[in-house]
């Protein structure tokens, strides 16, 4: 099975930040089955710390909107403020229109509803990433 590749020809690296273990594992498996290279983090601070110790930013960031400590939006804003520019997708169970509007206004690349369908996720990732 071919891996989805980025411009550089490497497999697309996706970072998943999700507080709940079972969802985290499920999403990692889904991404891997889609041919992506998935790294998972249990919280926003954990991901931010991984960048701070010199880790490479992923090609695309997948954020759970609903997390203790830092919400998905807060993680995104933190990254923007610290100059890390990563295509970011936020997913949530909340389908209220005003919530979607808020996320779109914040400058994230995409907004997804839970549960996540594989092809929609892939399409959103590809769309979020800068054109080759």
């Amino acid at each position, binding site marked *: 099975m071919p891996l989805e590749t980025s411009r550089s020809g490497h497999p697309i690296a996706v970072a998943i930040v999700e507080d709940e273990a079972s969802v985290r594992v499920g999403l990692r*498996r889904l991404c891997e089955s889609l041919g992506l290279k998935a790294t998972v983090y249990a919280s926003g601070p954990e991901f931010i710390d991984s960048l701070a110790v010199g880790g490479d930013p992923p090609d695309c960031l997948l954020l759970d909107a609903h997390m203790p400590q830092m919400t998905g939006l807060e993680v995104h804003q933190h990254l923007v403020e610290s100059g890390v520019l990563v295509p970011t997708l936020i997913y949530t169970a909340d389908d209220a229109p005003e919530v979607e509007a808020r996320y779109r206004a914040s400058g994230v690349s995409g907004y997804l509803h839970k549960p996540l369908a594989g092809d929609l996720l892939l399409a959103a990732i590809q769309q979020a990433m800068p054109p080759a």
Partner: protein
Amino acid sequence: MSELRPGYDPEADAGIIPLAPGLLLFTPAILLGNAASGLLQYPEVGAAVLFPPYAILTGALVLTARRDWIWYILLGAIAHFFTHWPQWTLTWVVLADVANIARALTAALLLHWAFGGPPRLESVWALGLFILGAVMVGPAVGATLGAADVMLHGGATTFWVPWRSWFMSNALTGLTLLPALVLTIAGAPSLWSRRIERRRILEAVLLTVALVVTCAVALLWRGRHAWHVALPLYSPLPVLIWAALRFGPAGASLALTAVAFGAIWAADRGTGPFAATGTDANILLLQVFLLLTTLPVLCIAAVNSGRHKVVQLYHALLASLHDHVAILDAHGIVLEVNDSWRRFADSAIVERFQRVGVGDDYVAACRSAAERGDTTAIRTLAGIQGVLHHESRRFEMEYDDEQDGRRERYALSLEALARPDGGVVVTRANVTARRQTLMQIEEQRRELSHLARVAVLGQLSGALAHELNQPLTSISSNAEAARRLLKRQPADLDELDAILGDIASEDQRAAQVIRRLRALLKRGETHLQPMDTRELLSEVLELAHAELITRRVTATALVARDLPPVLGDRVQLQQVFLNLIINACEAMNTTAAADRRLTLIANADARNNILISIRDFGTGIPSTLLERLFEPFVTTKPEGLGLGLSISRTIVAAHGGRLWAENNADRGATMYCLLSSGLLRRDGDTPTQPLTLESSPASISPPAHHSLAP
């Protein structure tokens, strides 16, 4: 026994006769009385056998207001003055007037003090007070002044002789004519207002005839033998006792007055047993005879009248009771039943053992019904025997009875009769309506509690959708990954196995969430059962978990390790704690996100009471609301309905617990819920160690996905 409370109350100085009709009645009476006093007099000192003006003036004073007394005293003095002047010298008459006034005034004041109004001779004690004032002290004062007057004007050689004759004539008047006047006039209004039975009028007429005949025999019949003189003296006595027993003190004193006047009239005409010699000694004999007849007859009348009042009250009391009442003796024989009982027993619809009346053996009736297998009779019998054998003072039971196809509910209570002979009072009340009301209230309470629960879930709906979406997201991601994995060659079977395992467990988790929601949404009966307190609280925290995250509230739970189980209804207690947690969250809406902390602490005391506190760091509760917070429709929230806390308190109270709020010393408020444990500590057991948080703090483990320790 006596209801007399001696003392004068000027506020109550009303009098039962107003001035105008009083004077209209008094004037002819006092003139007639003065005329009658000349009927039979002591030849030596000029004192009458009976002195009606004393009774008339004293009676007038007793029956009227004090502010009017001066008119009666003046009128009485004038009438007496012109009766005797100019036969007597001016000073003699004036001094006799003074003696008359002093006597009547003394007696009237003493009677006012003793009775606070017109005297009622309904006990021996009351009769004693009356005699002291009107028969002894009043006449003694008059006799002292009168005898001094007689001595001053040379009417007698010794003080004792005029004193005795004055005293005797007024004492006799005070004992016969005075009560006759006062009791008749005071009792007249109630006599008019009531319809008098014809039988009673007939009896009064017969009594009068009998009295006239016996008096005629006693006073007019001249026999030849000595016993012909003595015997007739006592012939009016049976008639007098008849009057005393049937017509009370008023009737007795009227009859006694009639006998006294008859005797005086006969003696004056020179007939009857007292006319034999016509001397002072003979008149004294007449007075002593009348006094000694009057005293026991009035005593009988007073005692009987008091007894009659008590019996009347007793019957009125029984008749006024709406409940069915029966009084049993120590053997279970029915002594008395009230009208309600009788009507109930007479209605054909009731069980036979309940159809007992006066004289029936209630215990035997219950026993025979119990032997036929009547469960109500079996329970009643056990209760009656318990009370009759002094095993308990009181027994209560409720039972259903089918009547005309209707189901009626009765409450039966048995109470030991507080008297030396023992016995039981049986009271039966129809409580069908009361029970229906109670059931309706309970139903409404349940309905309201359910609505409140649904409202709580409504508040949580966003968070609960999230809670359900988590396992669904996991399942869908895993399932899709598995499908793609299957297309690879070779398929990674170990990974597929792990995926399917995760799908199954996430499915269970979703089902669990749905089950809990269903339980909370359901309208159910209350089921009290002992449950693990930790488990209860962790379930609540799981339900609230998503809401806490949404509201950015960091929750900490400190639950004592060996918390005893709590006895209660799981769903209702979950409702209470969910409500408290949501309230705590809402109280922190304006608190900075970093400070939104909620602490749940649960521990038990030595008596196995469980204290659960939920502390927030919000704005606190305004002190004016702190007391009223648990009343319905009192709320601190602009959009709140104010029912959550009042229903929560009702639920906790129904569990035998307490729910209250306190403001914290620094910031925010704490809700306390005290619940009793299902585990009762037996005496002799070592008490459960008081659990201090320092020694055994324990985080609830199941909701591992939220912050549990500070």
